[in-house]
């Protein structure tokens, strides 16, 4: 089942189905009027797109209504969709092994789970993968990653709880080099972007990669929970500043949240979404597709 079907299925379970609402709306209002625009605005707000980007989108939509030949509500919707799609940067993830993926994000967003799923995907694509248990803080974080390792048959480099994550990463890099591994995926402890010392620790991990494995392609992935509201912008801004985020993994899209804040992040920080999480199973990670994503919102 594709992402869109899965989303649709999820959506159909909720009472306030936005897609339906919009479709109903469109059935009755053939002509574009202010009310239609306001309804669309509400859909964006309720998808967590945020007031700033929503207002920007609505402004340019109003402009287009004036200047171009948008007559029906259907045209209007298409125009808005195009507008949103245009905000996502086209930078695709392109692996050039050897690669180190540093996976970061605030607490509980789905980092460890997404790493488990990614390792599985990469392994199936024929890459040699290892995982580094860089979360040495949270109770049983390494055990959690190990179970994911067993599921996909990928080795996990781990130390004891409470040890220095930088030394875990160091060991993983040495192991990666000597085993000629293609991809090292490093888990990190969840941390709020406002914690100075923890963000400093993350910078250190980034520097360890640069220093110990200068030949490797270093990518930082930020994991973002789709249920997150406007705070996600601050998260992205600060994580980007700390470890130069390359792309985003947007998780928990199998719920009723739309993850619209990813649009604001794309708009403000020019960060692409690379993957979406649509469940807790090993196969529930898919490549991001802006068409499907936008269709699920509008």
């Amino acid at each position: 089942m594709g992402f869109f079907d899965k989303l649709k299925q999820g959506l159909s379970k909720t009472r306030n189905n936005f897609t339906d609402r919009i479709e109903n709306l469109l059935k009755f209002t053939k002509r574009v009027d202010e009310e239609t625009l306001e309804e669309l605005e509400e859909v964006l707000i309720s998808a967590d797109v945020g007031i700033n980007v929503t207002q920007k989108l609505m402004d340019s939509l109003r402009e287009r209504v004036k200047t171009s030949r948008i007559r029906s509500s259907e045209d209007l919707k298409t125009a808005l969709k195009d507008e949103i799609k245009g905000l996502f940067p086209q930078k695709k993830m392109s692996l050039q092994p050897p690669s180190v993926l540093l996976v970061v994000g605030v607490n509980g967003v789905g980092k460890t789970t997404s790493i488990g799923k990614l390792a599985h995907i990469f392994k199936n694509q024929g890459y040699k993968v290892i995982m580094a248990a860089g979360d040495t803080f949270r109770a049983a974080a390494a055990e959690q990653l190990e179970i994911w390792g067993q599921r996909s048959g990928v080795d996990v480099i781990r130390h004891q709880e409470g040890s220095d994550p930088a030394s875990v990463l160091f060991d993983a890099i040495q192991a990666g080099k000597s085993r000629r591994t293609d991809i090292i995926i490093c888990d990190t402890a969840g941390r709020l972007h406002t914690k100075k010392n923890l963000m400093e620790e993350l910078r250190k991990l980034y520097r360890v990669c640069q220093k110990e494995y200068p030949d490797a392609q270093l990518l930082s992935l930020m994991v973002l929970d789709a249920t997150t509201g406007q705070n996600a912008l601050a998260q992205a801004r600060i994580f980007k500043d700390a470890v130069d985020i390359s792309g985003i993994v947007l998780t928990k899209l199998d719920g009723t949240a739309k993850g619209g804040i990813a649009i604001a992040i794309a708009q403000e920080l020019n960060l692409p979404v690379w993957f979406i999480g649509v469940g807790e199973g090993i196969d529930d990670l898919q490549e991001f597709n802006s068409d499907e994503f936008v269709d699920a919102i509008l």
Partner: protein
Amino acid sequence: MAFEALTQKLNDIFKMLKGKGKLTEADVKQAMREVKLALLEADVNFKVVKELIQRISERAVGQEVMESLTPGQQVIKIVNDELVRLMGSKEAKLNFSPGGITVIMLVGLQGSGKTTTAGKLGKLLSKSGKKPLLVAADIYRPAAIKQLQVIGEKLDIPVFTMGQQDPVNIAMASVEYANRHNNDVIIIDTAGRLHIDEELMDELSRIKQAVNPSEILLVVDSMTGQDAVNVAEEFNKRLALTGLILTKLDGDTRGGAALSVKAVTGCPIKFVGMGEKLENLEPFYPERMASRILGMGDVLTLIEKASQTFDLKKAQELEQKLKTQSFDLNDFLEQLSQVKKIGSLDQILSMIPGFSQQKLKGLELNEKELVHVEAIINSMTPEERKNPSIINGSRRKRIAAGSGTSIQDVNRLLKQYEQTRKMIKQMTDMEKSRKRGKQRFPFFGF
């Protein structure tokens, strides 16, 4: 959007209404647009916002503007009061079963903080003399049982596990276990689940039926956006929740979800999670949450945090100095290094209402600049440090040369010092008025 921005906007709107008078419908309507945006920006659900705005408008129109406030401030006061009222006016307590074992069940979406909160509650309860038992009923997430075991070990609280068996059976068996081992409170950690997952939601109902909990607490991530209402509504419909716990409030989220979930469930918010450590569980204070949502800065929390972090003796000295108005540049330097321990300076300052964005601009100070500040202050004579007002043009030149900075740097530092002095005075004044229990809104002016 900071509180200042909101107040400033409101004040601009009300500029016309210079003298005292009544708030007219037109005034209020315009003001409500700004309030609406502020609430949406804080992630309050848009439907909840609509209802709130309506209620607030009704209350505001026709009100006399109070002597001590500007109309903009008056509106904020009404908004603030309404938010506080909605979030519940008193701190909620846990319900205990009158006889026998109290069962507490934690439920919520994936990753919201249930397992950690189970540990935190266990710690709180055992401190208050209870004998809690943690129950591992999450049989799905990898290493969830182990996670709870590690937490129990850290706290020296027993953890009941039965592997991956049916959670309903686990819950029932744990009650028996508690009976045999004299545990008086059971805290059940359930697996994270989506509110639209029929099967797993049904599992929760069955656990509820089997063990009849005194508390069913929904654990909600305070960074949640608009979807919070759907989640809370569904969990409440299925389980008739008894309370809410908001987690991860130690970040900088505005936390509008608090308002949303309270509004749709009517359940009290009983605790808030303020960190990953097991002691980071605090009671919920509606006033603080209201100011936070409005972007007024969590001033009370800030003061408490500051008083915890600051060296107590130094803080007392500082207070004394403030009273006698002898806060000098030596103290300023000391102050800066203390403040650094709490967080970045502009982050802290942005939490303090009464500083408009413009004022904040001049105050932005990063760690690197702090080195400059130290150099500048070190280039001053002892008298200059004690009494900065004597630092005239030629002294400024000398200090700049001595510290390898520019006169502008010296000027900026002196300005920052002056503003910090005012800020600290404002904070202590507020503390005083809070202690006297007087209802005042010290930050509504600039």
